[in-house]
């Protein structure tokens, strides 16, 4: 029989207002095994902790029940107290009488009996607790960053500067991400690539960073400190180590009609290409769908012209396997599909463009060499209309997103000012619902667009954009403040499309067992206090994959993710959770049900010789790898013969709790 101490917390008035805590302590005294019970205002305070530690020594307690808040809150605190007082920390049970009792009930009539019932179940369980020992696991001192945009680049640089090895896996042929597509950045109007390319070069030259561009994560196994990741290096058909980046192949390539993804399809590129001039690595790839050689077996002009014979049409995808201690997900975003917004005529006219397309048009390296012009007739527009919130704050989930995309108000003001700066004769009208500018120097920036540049802001969403016979676009809207119809014959319409997480995140979330919300953004371990950690230990996040944000916020978060990774990699060993599954070889009938339900691949089967009632027998039995087991308990529920038990939550313990609740 255990010698149990029960400690009931008031939590100020959080618990004491709806639960008669003294009555709970009194009721505990008559429970089997309980030798001491008391209540105290704040059990988690230093005095409260000392009370528990002293009682353990004074009464020779072998088990402790704390009736307080959720175990997520203070279980670790009370386990530490027990450990210091010489008691195995896993002999502590928490009865949650706050979140599951006092906070959900309004009076003591209901609160007190329920708290007593919760206390009784915890006592019944702790009677069957056994001391458990934490194991140790090693830490591989290498981090993996998935995504090579500004979020991934900054995280990699910060980790690498701290002295740890970092690998970046980037899907496209070059790092740089969305930021490399932008012209200028708000609110300071720095040239985007001028501030990004030095960082890209630093990544390429850093001795601690290895770049895997044109590569994707194929599979992930393992656990915090010891992940094993398979990376598919897609065939470039150009040897990275031989190519000098002279670019002759690209000038000679006769296939010039492939859609240029980097310029959002506004112009074309050759079949062998680098996405943009400052690409890192500066090694082209061959787009096999556009390449004449891959389609017909002829051509081969690039190979003939390559002075160093870097081109290899026979190259195959290669899978490499690498071990990592931590993984950072930084897969970024894309704009939503604008085709379902028929009323804005995105499909009907090339002069209706998305904001990212306009960004390419304004960029000196873009499809129009930075000259503002209509994509239909290359004429410079005179009247321009910007439509805000296209797909943002939209409850219609077939085409929009319910959230605010956060960056559109600011980049629209930026684009309007850049245009006004170069072409003062262009009239710009911005149809907005709300102008949202929280941030340092943000509202001043927007006011500058209105006051200094004369950008016309109209409150009200546009109803319809109709292409006219003369090539203009008739924009029909309403000024909600004047209650007047506004009709503008625009030359160009820009849609501020909602951002959405890169769709690849769904596949990655499955591989890494991450939780994602309804909009495919990653969920944090805690939205306020653990904002860069995923619920899966050892996985961190950075950038828009977590929610809409701008560049400074992304860079700050990248630093936060990096320090978390460094904190993890700095440890030589990690403590492992001892609450893992265990298979009883005498009960196991070798049915494989547990192996099939285990989400972590922790269960394997072996042939083993066992002695059952003096009879020697060779049986096929389940074995749990405690390093892989996360203690979810799926196997113990699924096991038809009751052979699987979760340590600390054994079938007997759970049944003891249920019996206590039912037998009152």
């Amino acid at each position, binding site marked *: 029989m255990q010698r149990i101490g029960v400690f009931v917390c008031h939590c100020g008035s959080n618990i004491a207002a709806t639960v008669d805590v003294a009555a709970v302590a009194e009721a505990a005294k008559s429970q089997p095994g309980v030798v001491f019970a008391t209540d105290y205002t704040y059990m988690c305070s230093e005095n409260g902790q000392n009370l528990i530690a002293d009682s353990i020594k004074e009464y020779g307690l072998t088990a402790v029940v704390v009736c307080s808040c959720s175990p997520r809150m203070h279980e670790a605190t009370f386990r530490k107290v027990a450990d210091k007082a010489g008691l195995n920390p896993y002999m502590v049970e928490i009865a949650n009488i706050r979140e599951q009792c006092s906070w959900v009930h309004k009076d003591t009539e209901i609160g007190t009996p329920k708290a007593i019932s919760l206390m009784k179940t915890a006592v019944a369980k702790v009677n069957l607790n056994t001391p458990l020992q934490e194991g140790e696991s090693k830490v591989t001192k290498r981090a993996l960053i998935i995504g090579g945009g500004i979020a991934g680049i900054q995280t990699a640089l910060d980790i690498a500067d701290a002295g740890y090895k970092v690998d970046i896996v980037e899907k496209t042929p070059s790092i740089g991400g969305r930021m490399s597509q932008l012209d200028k950045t708000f609110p300071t109007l720095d040239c985007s690539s001028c501030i990004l390319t030095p960082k890209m070069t630093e990544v390429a030259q850093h001795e601690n960073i290895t770049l895997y561009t044109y590569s994707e994560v194929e599979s992930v196994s393992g656990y915090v400190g010891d992940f094993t990741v398979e990376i598919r290096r897609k065939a470039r058909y150009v040897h990275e180590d031989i190519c000098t980046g002279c670019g002759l192949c690209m000038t000679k390539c006769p296939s010039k009609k492939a859609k240029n993804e980097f310029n959002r399809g506004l112009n074309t590129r050759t079949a062998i290409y680098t996405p943009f001039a400052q690409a890192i690595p500066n090694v082209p790839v061959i787009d096999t769908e556009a390449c004449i050689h891959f389609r017909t077996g002829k051509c081969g002009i690039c190979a003939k012209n390559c002075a160093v014979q870097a081109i290899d049409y026979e190259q195959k995808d290669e899978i490499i396997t690498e071990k990592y201690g931590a993984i950072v997900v930084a897969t970024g975003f894309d704009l939503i599909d604008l085709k379902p917004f028929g*009323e804005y005529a995105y499909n009907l006219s090339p002069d209706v463009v998305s904001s990212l397309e306009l960004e390419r048009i304004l960029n000196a390296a873009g499809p129009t060499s930075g000259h503002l012009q209509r994509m239909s007739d290359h004429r410079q527009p005179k009247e321009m209309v910007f439509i805000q*919130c296209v797909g943002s*704050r*939209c*409850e*219609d989930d077939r085409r*929009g997103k319910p959230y605010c995309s956060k960056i559109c108000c600011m980049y629209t003001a930026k684009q309007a000012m850049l245009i006004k700066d170069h072409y003062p004769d262009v009239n710009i009208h911005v149809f907005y*619902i709300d102008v949202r500018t929280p941030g340092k120097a943000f509202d001043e920036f927007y006011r500058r667009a209105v006051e200094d540049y004369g950008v016309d802001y109209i*409150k*009200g*969403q*546009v*109803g*319809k954009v109709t292409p006219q016979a003369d090539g203009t676009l008739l924009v*029909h*809207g*309403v000024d*909600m403040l004047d*209650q007047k*119809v506004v009709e503008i014959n625009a030359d160009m319409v820009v849609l501020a499309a909602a951002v959405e997480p890169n769709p690849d995140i769904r596949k990655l979330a499955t591989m890494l067992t991450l939780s994602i919300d309804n909009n495919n953004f990653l969920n944090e371990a805690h939205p306020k206090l653990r904002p860069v950690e995923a619920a899966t230990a050892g996985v961190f996040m950075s950038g828009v994959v977590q929610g809409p944000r701008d560049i400074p916020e992304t860079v700050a978060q990248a630093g936060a993710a990096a320090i978390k990774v460094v904190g993890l990699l700095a440890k030589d060993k990690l403590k492992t959770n001892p609450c893992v599954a265990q298979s009883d070889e005498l009960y196991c009938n070798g049915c494989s049900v547990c192996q099939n339900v285990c989400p972590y691949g922790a269960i394997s089967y072996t042939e083993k010789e066992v002695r059952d009632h003096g009879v020697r027998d060779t049986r096929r039995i389940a074995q749990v790898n405690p390093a892989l087991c996360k203690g979810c308990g799926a196997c113990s529920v699924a096991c038809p013969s009751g052979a699987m038990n979760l340590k600390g939550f054994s079938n007997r313990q759970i049944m003891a709790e249920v019996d206590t609740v039912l037998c009152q």
Partner: protein
Amino acid sequence: MTIEEANIREEVLLICGCDVTRCMKCGKCSASCPAYDEFDIKPHQFASYIARGDMYELMQSKTIWNCLGCFACVERCPRDVRPGKLIDGVRQAAVRRRGGTHLQPEDIPSRIDPDTPQQLLMSVLRRERK
């Protein structure tokens, strides 16, 4: 808001099945409305009028008789407030209070003006078929 107005509001919300608190005043309904200039109370104002309970004002407005029922606003509303249904609901409530004005299907042909747009007839049929 009087008790009577509160009752009318409840009736209107029952008829149309819309949630006016979801409106974010973006004005896309008004911007989509082909009869905007014929309205004294504009489509985007309906949600706030109903939220406030100014039902008498709405029932006396020209809007409820000038709305074509083209449902462009219903189709394009990003918040699923569906202002066209709100207008429809207020009109229904107004009609119910007048009494004896129910139109019989056989009366319709004799009343049709040859200039009446076909779309109007279609939308009348669509919205009256309840």
